[in-house]
C-alpha cells in the first residue's frame, strides 16, 4: 500500500466559504497537511449560514456546511489584524509548500504576504489565489457570488427550462465548485513542475474563466456560426428519446436516453413492444427526433406506472441508458455509493458522529484518501505552534491571552 500522494506537502489555508475550502479539502484528502487559518473574531460558520437560527449546533465549526467542505484539515486560530500574528505566519512559511487563499484582492498584500514577499521567505512557494473575476484586470475588486458568476459567464443563460427563464445553476455554490476543481488541478500541475525544476509559481484561478473553460459549447456556437442557442432543458441536440419522465409517486422521475437503433430496440422490448413503437413516426433516429414530443408522452405512459428504480432496472437490463432521478435522501443512502465507500462517517473527539459524502478520489493502491473529522476551531494550535514551530507552551498561552493566537 503506497503512501497518499501528497503526504509530504503542507498547505497554509486562508480560504473560506466554498470555492477555496473545497479546493484545499481535495488536497487534504490526498494526504496533504492542510492548516486552515481561522479566527475567533469571525468564525467562518457565521459567514456560511447567512442568518442566525440556521446554526444547528452550539459548537462553532459544527455547522453543517463547514463539515461538508473542511474535513481532513487542521485548524489554527490567528488574529491577522495583530502584527504578531503576521510574524508567526512568516515563520510558519518555511514549512509550507502551498498557500491557498480566496480573500478579496489585496488582503494578503496588506498583510505583507504578497506572492513576491512570500517568495522571498520561501523561494519555491506555490500560491493559489482564487477569486470571482481574476486578480488582474478591470474586475479584480468585484466580489464573487456563484449566481452572479453564472450570469456573467453565460452559464445561467443556457440553464433552465426552454419555456422558462435563465437560471442560476443548482445546487448552491456551483460556480465555486467548478473553480475549485480547476484550481486543484492547477495546484497539482504546479507541484509537478516544482518537483522537476525546484520552481514555485503564482496561480490566479478565476471563477468566470473556469466556468467558461468548463462549458464552452454555446460560446463555440457563437464564435463559429454567430448564433445564440436557446435553452434545451433535458433534451439533447441530436438524441431522441432523451428526457426525464414522470414515475409513480410524488416528484419521482426517471431519465432515459437512446442514441442508436440498437438501444431503441431495447427500449421497445422493455416497454413490452406496444403498438405505437411500430408507427413509422418512430422508425429511425431522424423521425424519432422530429416526433419526440409525441414519443415522450407515449414513453411516459409506461414510466408513470412504475417506481423510478424499477423503471431504471428494467431499462438497463434491456441495454438502455436510464437513471432514476435521485432525490437528495436517496443519493445519501444509495447502495452503489455505499458499496464504493463514498458515504462516510466522522467521529468528533466528544464521540458525536457526522456523516458526509467522500471526495471522488479512488486510487487502487494509494486507497481512498485521508478522512479525519472536520476540525474544531483552533484544535491544532498546540500542534502547529508547538510541535511544528517549536514554541513552548508558555509562549503559546501568552499569545492566546494577547489575542494573537485567537
Amino acid at each position, binding site marked *: 500500500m503506497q503512501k497518499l500522494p501528497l503526504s509530504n506537502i503542507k498547505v497554509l489555508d486562508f480560504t473560506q466559504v466554498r470555492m477555496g475550502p473545497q479546493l484545499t479539502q481535495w488536497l487534504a484528502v490526498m494526504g496533504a497537511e492542510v492548516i486552515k487559518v481561522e479566527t475567533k473574531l469571525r468564525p467562518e460558520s457565521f459567514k456560511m449560514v447567512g442568518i442566525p437560527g440556521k446554526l444547528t449546533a452550539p459548537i462553532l465549526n459544527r455547522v453543517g456546511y463547514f463539515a461538508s467542505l473542511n474535513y481532513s484539515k487542521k485548524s489554527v486560530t490567528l488574529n491577522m489584524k495583530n502584527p504578531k500574528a503576521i510574524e508567526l505566519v512568516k515563520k510558519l512559511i518555511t514549512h509550507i509548500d502551498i498557500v491557498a487563499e480566496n480573500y478579496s484582492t489585496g488582503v494578503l498584500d496588506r498583510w505583507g504576504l504578497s506572492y513576491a514577499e512570500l517568495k522571498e521567505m520561501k523561494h519555491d512557494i506555490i500560491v493559489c489565489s482564487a477569486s470571482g473575476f481574476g486578480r488582474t484586470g478591470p474586475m479584480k475588486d468585484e466580489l464573487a457570488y456563484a449566481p452572479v458568476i453564472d450570469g456573467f459567464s453565460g452559464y445561467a443563460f443556457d440553464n433552465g427550462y426552454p419555456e422558462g427563464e435563465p437560471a442560476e445553476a443548482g445546487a448552491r455554490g456551483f460556480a465555486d465548485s467548478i473553480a475549485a476543481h480547476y484550481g486543484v488541478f492547477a495546484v497539482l500541475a504546479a507541484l509537478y513542475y516544482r518537483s522537476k525544476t525546484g520552481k*514555485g509559481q503564482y496561480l490566479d484561478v478565476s471563477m468566470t474563466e473556469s466556468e467558461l473553460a468548463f462549458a464552452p459549447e454555446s460560446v463555440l456556437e457563437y464564435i463559429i456560426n454567430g448564433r445564440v442557442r436557446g435553452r434545451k432543458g433535458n433534451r439533447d441536440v441530436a438524441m431522441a428519446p432523451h428526457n426525464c419522465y414522470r414515475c409513480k409517486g410524488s416528484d419521482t422521475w426517471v431519465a432515459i436516453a437512446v442514441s442508436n437503433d440498437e438501444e431503441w430496440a431495447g427500449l421497445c422490448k422493455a416497454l413490452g413492444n406496444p403498438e405505437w413503437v411500430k408507427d413509422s413516426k418512430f422508425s429511425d433516429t431522424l423521425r424519432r427526433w422530429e416526433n419526440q414530443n409525441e414519443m415522450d408522452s407515449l414513453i411516459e405512459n409506461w414510466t408513470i406506472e412504475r417506481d423510478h428504480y424499477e423503471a431504471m432496472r428494467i431499462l438497463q437490463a434491456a441495454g438502455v441508458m436510464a437513471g432514476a432521478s435521485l432525490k437528495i435522501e436517496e443519493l445519501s443512502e444509495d447502495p452503489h455509493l455505499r458499496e464504493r465507500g463514498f458515504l462516510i462517517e466522522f467521529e468528533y473527539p466528544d464521540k458525536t458522529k457526522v456523516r458526509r459524502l467522500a471526495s471522488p478520489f479512488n486510487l487502487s493502491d494509494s486507497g481512498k484518501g485521508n478522512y479525519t473529522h472536520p476540525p474544531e476551531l483552533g484544535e491544532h494550535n498546540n500542534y502547529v505552534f508547538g510541535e511544528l514551530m517549536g514554541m513552548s507552551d508558555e509562549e503559546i498561552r501568552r499569545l492566546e491571552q494577547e489575542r494573537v493566537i485567537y
Partner: protein
Amino acid sequence: MSDEALCGLKVLEYGEFISAPHCGKLLADLGADVIKVEQAGIGDGARRFGPFPQDIPDSEKSGLFLFLNTNKRGVTLNLDTEAGKIIFQQLIRWADVFVENQSPPDARKLGIDYKTLHDINPSLVVTSITYFGQTGPYSGFKGCDLISLHMSSEAFANPAYEVYDPEKNPPLKLPGHSGDFLGGVTGAICTMSAIFAQLAGGMGQHVDVSQQEALATMVCHEVGDYYDAGIQYLRDRKSRWEDSPKYACKDGYIMMNIPFQMWGRVVEMMGNPEWAKNPSFQTPIGLHENWSKVQPKIIEWMKEHTAAEVEKEAREKRIDVSIVHSAKEVVTNELFKARGFFVDIEHQMAGKIKLPGAYCKFSTTPPVVRRPPPLLGEHNFDVYCQLLGYTAENLVKLKQTRII
C-alpha cells in the same frame, strides 16, 4: 527544460467524445506529450458533433473536437485486430499515463482494462473515467451525461429557483455536457495525484473516476442537511429559504445578491423609497421574514429599468451584480479581452479559429497552444515510424489492412 508545467510527462489517450479527451486536453495544454489514439476510419465521436462552420458537417472542423484536442498528437488504430493490439501494447510501454473512458465491460473487450495493461507496464497510471465507476451494483449500467446528472441528484437540485410546479418542471440536467466535462477535470486531478505516488517510487495504479461521484460533490450541502437534520430537499421554489437572485429587467435579466449587509445599498440604488423605511425590514431576521412583502417591490423596480442601468448603478454601490450574458455578450466582453482569455489558433482545415482559453493564469507555466488539434491520423508517421520504429512501408501495409 521549457516552461511547461508537465513537460516530459507521456500520456496515451483513448478518449471518446468528452470526458477522457477533456482530461487529456488539460494535461496536453500544460506541456504533457499526449498521443491521442482514435478508432481507424471514423475517429473520435466529437468530430461528428459540431458546431460546424455554416452547418456543413466536416470531421476536421467540429468546434467541440477542436476545443478538446489542442496540443495532442493524433494516431489511428484498430484495437479490434491482433496487430492493432500489439501496436497498442508498444504505446502502453512508452506511456507514463493512460486515460480512457470506456465502460468496464467494453474496456475488457478491447484489452485496455487495468489488469491487462498493468501486466505490460507495471508503473503505468491508468485513469478510467466512467459514469458509475469500476465496482458496485451500477458499474455495468449504460450511461451518458444526462444519466450521470440525474443519478447524482445534481439534476434534482437544478434549477434552484425556477421550479414553480414540481409536477410540470422536471429535475433538470445542466447545460451542454457538464457531467462529462466534470468527469474530465476530476480525471485530471486524480491522474496528477497518482503521478505523485508514481514519482515517490510507487508502482502504477488504477485511477477509478466515477462521474456520479464527481457530480454528487456538487450537492454536498444538501446531503449534509439530510444527514444532520433529516431535511428532505424539496424542489419547488417556495421551499427555498433564500430567494432567487435573478430579476427580470425591462430588456433582459440580472443576477443580484442581496444579503442583509447589502440591503442598505440596494435601498439607496432604488432611490430610498418610503416602503423600504418600514422598521421591520431593518434587521436580518426582519428582512428575511418579510421578504415576501419586500421582493415584489424590488421586482417591480427592476422591471422599470434596463439590465444595463441596474448593473451600472449596482456596481457603483459595490453590490454583487451581473447582467445575464448570452454567448454573444460573453465573447465580446471587455473583461475577457483584458485578461486575454480567448486564444486564436491556426488549424490546417478549420483555418483561424478563436477558442476559450484557460481556467487559471499561471505565472511561470501558462498553457499555450503549441500545436493545433490533430487531423485524423495526422501523426501516424511520427508515432509509428519515428517513435516505435516501423518503416514507412510497414505503415502503408498497416493502412491497407485497416490496422491503422
